[in-house]
């Protein structure tokens, strides 16, 4: 079976886009092939800084033939209708059509045999569309071309053929770039044109031309060489998967080299050195395996085998690293000269937001709130307040000014050096967390108090001034803040009734009550997203929120969890069916008699049948038990109690006619169903449950 090989050769593709682009190429091409009736045995895509490549193997040589029947107008239809049919079906005269009998009369049928096209033709047809509409996160035009690509596209290779024959060029053209069988080697080491026959040949020739096509292989080479170089120097590589991904996307021919810097720089905190070297230079750092401390060496990944063995490259990189570390050391030394508490005063002159005052005022608010929240999370109020007052002081340090990503961490170091309690120092780093879904959540009580206070102050502040996220716009990262609160509360199992905690924060602002309600609803939305991502059913989330007045995140989550488990049991499913039957009857009858008509007590004197007496008794008992269980926050017990309604409900519907002729009996039975509905509402709004 023949194979297809495609390469799109361009100027340097951003490292972070390469993996997804390779996946997209594979998906778009293979989907289009399958859609065209061309199944394949396997496919694999690759990316380097300069090329996307795709091999698809085991393709048929052509599409299967297709037979199409098209029903036309009735025999004897007007001329115009017949002409239209001929045109649409691609026939030259009515003689070519068949006549088919139908109960409604005789109709023309056009049968067309469509011979399958060759795979080359199909590929040549589909590629321009795929290339033009390629889903790059950002794309550009260049020169006078209208083609959008991530950076200028330079050449296209597209070959089709089987093992033992000469492959054929699949010919197409996009904005003056004609597909061919040629690619190019390494930009500097082997820039010449390479003629390619098939995938294996392509990989081998690229290899000779100093291009490692497979990003996984480049990563392996870098990691292996880096570890070997580190080992030879008696050191250990500080592994960094994200950096490895990035540097593997910056080189076609990875060559790892070791550089060093003055030991004196090691007085600067490890993270500052690591960040400097990583962010600015995209180099790896090394540590001493015995002490775990950073060594004065770094590893760079170059893209060439240099004529001098890399001496000039190492010297150049060392010089840049030295300059960067000098800056970092200077910043750090400056920062150590002034106590953070003193430095924090600078926050008073920095505007946080026009309508929300200075950073200093913000810190004051956070400190007050952290103190109030402290008892709820098991922190010492005074310590939480101190921690909050210092947590943002490092924003005005030189080091953070240069490396904003070190905010919090620098504060932690400086506070430790100033001999503040560990909990206070740690809160500086941890109160920003979690920054995203993958980030860890603070665990220490003081950090939790400050983290919650910080996020709540931000949310309430922006809610007060009506700067809420809209659509994709969330410039103050308020969704992240709300999600942060949710994760901190849930993952630490904290009992924080949001409404009660937020009310005083809003204070007497205009429309405070409405804004509070709106913010609680925002939390509910975020919680929904969060729970859904963890696999909870969205309808169960809705069912619990449908109860209203739900602001204790831990309880909400537990309730949803218990409800989900209950509905997975037979009892749960059957009770839900019984509930639905009751609810539907009530809905229909409420239409006639008015909403809420039946929400009154059942009169036991009018219960005539055994099954309705039984159901009534069961509801009374179960409601009481559920109430007790809910009070104890034991939702599993509440569900269990509720499950005892299943048999009485089934019996009731089996033997009792709700809409009895006797008006009193009918009313009473509807009230009985309403009491069933009310009993379920102690757990959740069952009407929101789907499936």
């Amino acid at each position, binding site marked *: 079976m023949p194979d297809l090989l495609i390469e799109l050769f361009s*100027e*340097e593709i*951003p*490292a*972070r886009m390469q993996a997804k682009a390779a996946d997209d190429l594979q998906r778009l091409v293979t989907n289009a092939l399958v859609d065209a009736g061309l199944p394949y045995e396997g496919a694999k895509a690759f990316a380097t*800084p300069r090329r996307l490549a795709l091999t698809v193997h085991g393709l048929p040589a052509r599409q299967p033939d297709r037979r199409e029947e098209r029903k036309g107008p009735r025999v004897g239809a007007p001329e115009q209708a017949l002409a239209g049919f001929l045109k649409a079906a691609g026939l030259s005269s009515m003689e070519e059509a068949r006549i088919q009998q139908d109960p409604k009369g005789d109709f023309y049928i056009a049968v067309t045999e469509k011979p399958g096209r060759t795979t080359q033709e199909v590929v040549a047809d589909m590629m321009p569309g795929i290339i033009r509409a390629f889903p790059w996160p*950002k*794309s*550009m*035009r*260049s*020169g*006078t071309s209208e083609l959008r690509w*991530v*950076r*200028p596209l*330079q050449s296209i290779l597209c070959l089709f053929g089987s093992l033992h024959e000469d492959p054929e060029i699949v010919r197409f053209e996009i904005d003056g770039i004609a597909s061919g069988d040629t690619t190019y080697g390494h*930009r*500097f*080491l082997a820039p010449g044109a390479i003629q390619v026959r098939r995938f294996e040949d392509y990989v081998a020739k690229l290899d000779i031309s100093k291009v490692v096509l497979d990003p996984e292989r480049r990563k392996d080479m870098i990691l292996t060489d880096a570890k070997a170089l580190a080992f030879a120097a008696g050191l250990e590589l500080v592994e960094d998967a994200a950096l490895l991904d990035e540097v593997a996307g*910056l*080189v076609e021919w990875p060559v790892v080299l070791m550089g060093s810097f003055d030991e004196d720089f090691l007085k600067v905190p490890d993270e500052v050195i690591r960040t400097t070297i990583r962010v600015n*230079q*995209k*180099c790896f750092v090394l540590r001493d395996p015995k002490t775990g401390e950073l060594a004065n060496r770094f590893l*760079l990944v*170059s*893209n*060439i085998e*240099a*004529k*001098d063995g890399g001496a*000039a*490259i190492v*010297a*150049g*990189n060392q*010089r*840049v*690293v*030295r*300059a960067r570390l000098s*800056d970092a050391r200077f910043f750090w030394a400056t920062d150590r000269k002034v106590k953070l508490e003193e430095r924090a005063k600078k926050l008073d002159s*920095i*505007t*946080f*937001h*026009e309508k929300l005052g200075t950073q200093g005022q913000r810190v004051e608010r956070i400190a007050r709130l952290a103190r109030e929240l402290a008892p709820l999370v098991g922190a010492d109020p005074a310590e939480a307040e101190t921690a909050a007052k210092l947590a943002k002081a490092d924003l005005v340090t030189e080091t953070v000014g240069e490396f904003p990503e070190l905010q919090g961490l620098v504060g932690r170091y400086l506070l430790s050096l100033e001999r503040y309690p560990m909990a206070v120092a740690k809160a500086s780093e941890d109160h920003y967390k979690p920054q995203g879904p993958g980030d860890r959540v603070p665990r220490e009580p003081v950090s939790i108090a400050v983290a919650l206070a910080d996020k709540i102050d931000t949310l309430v502040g922006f809610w007060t001034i009506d700067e809420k996220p809209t659509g994709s716009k969330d410039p103050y990262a308020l969704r992240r803040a709300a999600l942060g609160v949710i994760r901190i509360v849930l993952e630490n199992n904290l009992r924080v009734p949001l409404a009660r905690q937020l009310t005083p924060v809003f204070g007497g602002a205009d429309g405070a009550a409405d804004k509070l309600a709106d913010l609680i609803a925002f939390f509910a939305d975020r919680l929904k997203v969060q729970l859904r991502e963890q696999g909870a059913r969205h309808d169960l989330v809705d069912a619990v929120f449908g109860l209203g007045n739900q602001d204790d995140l831990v309880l909400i989550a537990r309730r949803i969890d218990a409800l989900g488990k209950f509905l997975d049991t037979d009892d749960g499913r059957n009770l839900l069916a019984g509930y639905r039957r009751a609810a539907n009857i009530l809905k229909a009858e409420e239409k006639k008699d008015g909403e809420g008509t039946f929400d009154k007590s059942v009169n036991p004197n009018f219960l005539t049948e055994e099954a309705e007496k039984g159901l009534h008794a069961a509801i009374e008992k179960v409601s009481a038990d559920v109430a007790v269980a809910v009070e104890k926050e034991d939702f599993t017990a509440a569900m269990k109690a509720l499950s005892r309604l299943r048999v009485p409900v089934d019996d009731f519907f089996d033997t009792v006619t709700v809409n009895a002729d006797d008006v009193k009996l009918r009313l009473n039975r509807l009230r009985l169903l309403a009491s069933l509905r009310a009993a379920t509402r102690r757990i959740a709004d069952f009407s929101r449950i789907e499936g």
Partner: protein
Amino acid sequence: MPAPADPLSPTRSFQGLILTLQRFWAEQGCVLLQPYDMEVGAGTFHPGTTLRALGPKPWKAAYVQPSRRPKDGRYGENPNRFQHYYQFQVILKPNPSNLQELYLASLKAIGIDPLLHDIRFVEDDWESPTLGAWGLGWECWCDGMEVSQFTYFQQVAGIECSPVSGELTYGLERLAMYLQGTDNGFDLNFNGRDGDEKVTYGDVFKQAEEEYSRHNFEHADTAMLLQHFRDAEAECTSLLEKGEAGERHLMVMPAYDQCIKASHVFNLLDARGVISVTERQSYILRVRELAKACGAAWLKTAGGGAA
């Protein structure tokens, strides 16, 4: 390339580097412009780039542009950070398809051998919010140091670029430091001479760095600057109105000067620390509006390709 001992070798003198780049790009057919005679934050502000990038007419130019970034001043105490520095700017419209090769050839011309040094094109999305401009391209690295920016302009003054221009910006001081092997920008040999005849970058600019840092951070009269901003803004708008002549526009360049002026005054005010974070955005938007209006007017001139 001149011999290394030649005072005008790019590896020996700052001016040798400039001369070599000028010669290289002149050979590619660029007009060698001189620096624009106004204070700008980057070479892109030169009308030879901003305005000429708009419209259909081909254009090739290269020039040195002294660039002022008041906030980057360090009183002459930091060997790497100056409030005034030089950019070497190249614009080619439309960008030739071998622009990367031309750029690499220019590096060879100044003494950077790509088989000895590690040259890399690292993603960098360029954006100038004040000019309403953006483009895609790279930071060009030499042995881990950013030595140039390489951008394919997609939009300038809020207007789609068609054809697209390629813009190259060489950071001359950094490049020279690399070529001369010094870690301190003030130690750069400016004229390539030795002994008594040697003039360093510090000889030429250190005093200026000290003085302007005082000015930028401490003494520039902010009330006056605020007034200058408003005046420049008003004058730009007024000139654009007065230059309207139906299908054509007759006074874009004077109006654009006022846009440049407003931008620089804003940078000074920013350095003086009198602009809050939120105000900052609104100032940027105000300059952008001026730039956009100038860009739109430019398209109604001969230079902008109006018939």
